[in-house]
């Protein structure tokens, strides 16, 4: 909450400018942009239709398999600060995990080992809509068969 504001609009503007981080601001601006009157069809509605197509894709695949496995992250953990990935690269790196959000399916990530630099690696398991039971059983079985969940990397 800012020290001083002339009026409610300024109060809100200052609080949000000072309080929200860059990423949050970016997403708010993006959301506002695509929802603008006159542009909703072009951006928001179109994205929603693509999302439905993604969901239907997963529905089809889960008719033939029980679960889908993938890494959680496409590379090993990146370094902190400017040596690591920039915000855009980070977003692109989310490509395995955004699928569950878009398709609305259950997913879980569990430890599955370490890279040769001793950095932990995550395994993502995806299951079909309302198939949480299958998801938990597969994850549990893997956990029972491996020691990774009991190990911590040396910092």
């Amino acid at each position, binding site marked *: 909450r800012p020290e001083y504001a002339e009026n*409610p*609009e300024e109060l*809100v503007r200052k609080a949000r400018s000072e309080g929200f981080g860059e990423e949050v601001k970016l997403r708010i601006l993006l959301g*506002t942009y695509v*929802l*603008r*009157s006159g542009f*909703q069809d072009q951006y*928001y509605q179109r994205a929603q239709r693509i999302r439905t197509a993604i969901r239907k894709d997963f529905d089809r695949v889960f008719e033939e398999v029980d679960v889908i496995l993938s890494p959680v992250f496409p590379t090993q953990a990146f370094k902190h600060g400017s040596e690591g990935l920039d915000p855009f690269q980070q977003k692109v790196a989310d490509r395995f995990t955004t699928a569950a959000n878009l398709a609305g399916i259950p997913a879980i990530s569990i430890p599955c080992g370490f890279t040769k630099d001793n950095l932990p690696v995550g395994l993502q398991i995806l299951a079909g809509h309302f198939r949480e039971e299958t998801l938990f059983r597969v994850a549990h079985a893997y956990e029972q068969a491996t020691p990774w969940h009991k190990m911590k990397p040396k910092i």
Partner: protein
Amino acid sequence: MEYEAVIGLEVHLHLKTKTKAFCGCSTEFGREPNSQVCPVCLGFPGALPVFNKTALESAIKVALAMNCKVQAYTKFDRKNYFYPDLPKNYQISQYDLPLSKDGFLEIESDSKVKWIRIRRVHMEEDAGKFIHQGQVTLIDYNRAGIPLLEIVSEPDISSPQEAYIYLTTLKSTIEYLDVSDCDMEKGSLRCDANISLRPKGADNLGVKTELKNMNSFKAVKDALAYEIRRQTESLESGKKMSQETRLWDAKEAKTIAMRTKEDAQDYRYFPDPDLTPFLIQAEEIERIKKSLPELPKAKVLRFVKEYGIAEYDAKILVLSKKDAEYAELCMRAYPQKEKKTLVNWLIGPMLAEANAKGCAVAELGVSVADLLELVRLVETDVISNLSAKAVLSEMVQTHKTPNDIIKEKNLIQISDSAALSSIIDEVIRNNPKSVADFKTGKVNALMFLVGQVMKASGGKANPKTAQEMLKGRINNA
């Protein structure tokens, strides 16, 4: 050039649910500010809404009473804007798939029946309330999240008086459903108006003005009347109308323009992802439809048919649901086939007592049996009509039975000619001029003499008997 007014009304109604629309906070009115709030209605990060089922049922009841088509598939949308009384910075409302649409409200205007079409009835939540205290404005969020119904009419209303009738008819209908208090003073009913003028008989709509800040049905009528005058003057002097919002100033009895916003608000409506769209089963709608109480219009028709009373009288009897039920109990128990006398007591003295006390007729504490007894006592000439009215007042005050009161106050009418004889003689003796006037044919003189008999007898003489006796004695003298 003659202009005609084209008016549409938007009514916001508080639904009388125990808890808010999307959280478990109490909706009780008049509590300590900000004591009925929680993370959901305050819009704290991470809080999620859950829709109140009773609110949906109440909404469907209203939609059906407004003759609207309840949609099978409906959803909530976010209406996004910034304002201090809106905690989430969006209002949960309905945009393109409202709960119901395409209905009508039947009103009586100028003794003619008119249908005002209802464009839609949809659900939303209320915002917080501002309390202005000098330089500071405080905000009470107890009201934020209370379920609201928005009822939008088509611009079918053509006069301020019609707008008033629309509102009273709407209120009377919805009161029967018992889903809202419909009280503009308490803020459970709010009304905004849209008005435009066009040349009489024209098809196109003129530029509309939105009116806000009217705090009573009368204010709506007054504000619209003022706007018609103002806009007519404006148009006749050649000024061009621009779309604007104006506030009604009740004290000064005029409308003032609101500071114009630079751009029209873009609410960026999108479906609320926290609330799933839902289906309303046809069986559910049927069930609710069957559970609707008999509405005023149907009750009037039935009263006329079943009890043979005048439509005009029936309309007064049905104004309030409680009173209509009380009236029906009375009419059922009343032994005579012709109910006029009883009805006159209900819409006359009983209603007057209720208005004086500021309550419903049914709440006066006069039992059906007692009222009927009182009416019987008058009909059998035991007491005079005049005395009966006084007895009624006493019944309302003390809840005693009519017979007890009559005995106590010694109000039994003197109908016996022997008892009245001496009074009659005295009045004739003391008013020679009136007696002479009556003999020359002045009927009023007789009435005056009857009045004198009533006075001399302390109001207890039977006026009919007195009149006959006076006539007899004077003519035979």
